[in-house]
């Protein structure tokens, strides 16, 4: 009989990482203040890790803890995403007052700098110069 514990944990891990990328970007872009979602993520992570301690089996315990720890990471990642936006390494949402402030300061950008194809790794290429940030009008 097949052991499906690994499959469930793989799914939980991948979806947690996916949410950690896509969801955190969305949450940070929508939140005028990142502190409330940070607190919510920390509390949710704590609840899931406590649930893991009382889980009936390893699979459920593991899934709870993997998701719980990922949510803690995401709380920290909100701060890093805020920093990326501020420095023009991630697109700012002009409708978000916090991002609008960063755009007005002149360092943030409306473009996603990562939304491009990388250069061909099989040929010699010099790194491109730092892109000038776009300043909102």
């Amino acid at each position, binding site marked *: 009989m*097949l*052991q*499906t*514990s*690994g*499959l*469930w*944990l*793989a*799914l*939980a*891990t*991948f979806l*947690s*990482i*996916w949410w950690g*990328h*896509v969801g955190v970007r969305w949450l940070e872009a929508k939140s005028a203040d990142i502190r409330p979602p940070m607190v919510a993520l920390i509390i949710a992570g704590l609840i899931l*890790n406590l649930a*893991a*301690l*009382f*889980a*009936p*089996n*390893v*699979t*459920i*315990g*593991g*899934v*709870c*803890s*993997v998701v*719980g*720890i*990922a949510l803690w*990471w995401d709380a920290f990642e909100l701060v890093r995403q805020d920093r990326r936006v501020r420095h023009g*390494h991630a697109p700012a949402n002009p409708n978000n007052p916090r991002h609008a402030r960063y755009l007005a300061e002149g360092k943030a950008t409306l473009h996603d*700098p*990562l939304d*491009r*194809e*990388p*250069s061909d*790794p*099989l*040929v*010699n*290429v*010099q*790194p*491109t*110069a*730092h*892109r000038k940030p776009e300043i909102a009008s």
Partner: protein
Amino acid sequence: MMWEGLAIGLFSLGIIGFGFFWVIRMEYHLGYLWWPYPLLFGIAIIVLSLFVADAGWSALLGVTGASFIWGATELKEQAVRADLGWFPRNPKPKPAPPLVNIIRKIKAPHL
């Protein structure tokens, strides 16, 4: 109390941290065109986890496999980060992966 679940969660934190390390090194030395290989390696580990009797070890293999699949999706973005000068870029040409002509026809996945 079920400490094994918490241990698996902590293991996931460590293996994802290791993922950041190997993605940066792999992109630097080999380039993002190698992305199918960690992807297939991750899938192979998850398939292997189905045949491990112990749920705990199977879980650890599952987490490891998923982290390699995620790493494969990070290679392309890491290459862009290096192009933008956010990470060091290897000035030497990188080795072509096996089946490079087929790989070039497939859009590299990213999250």
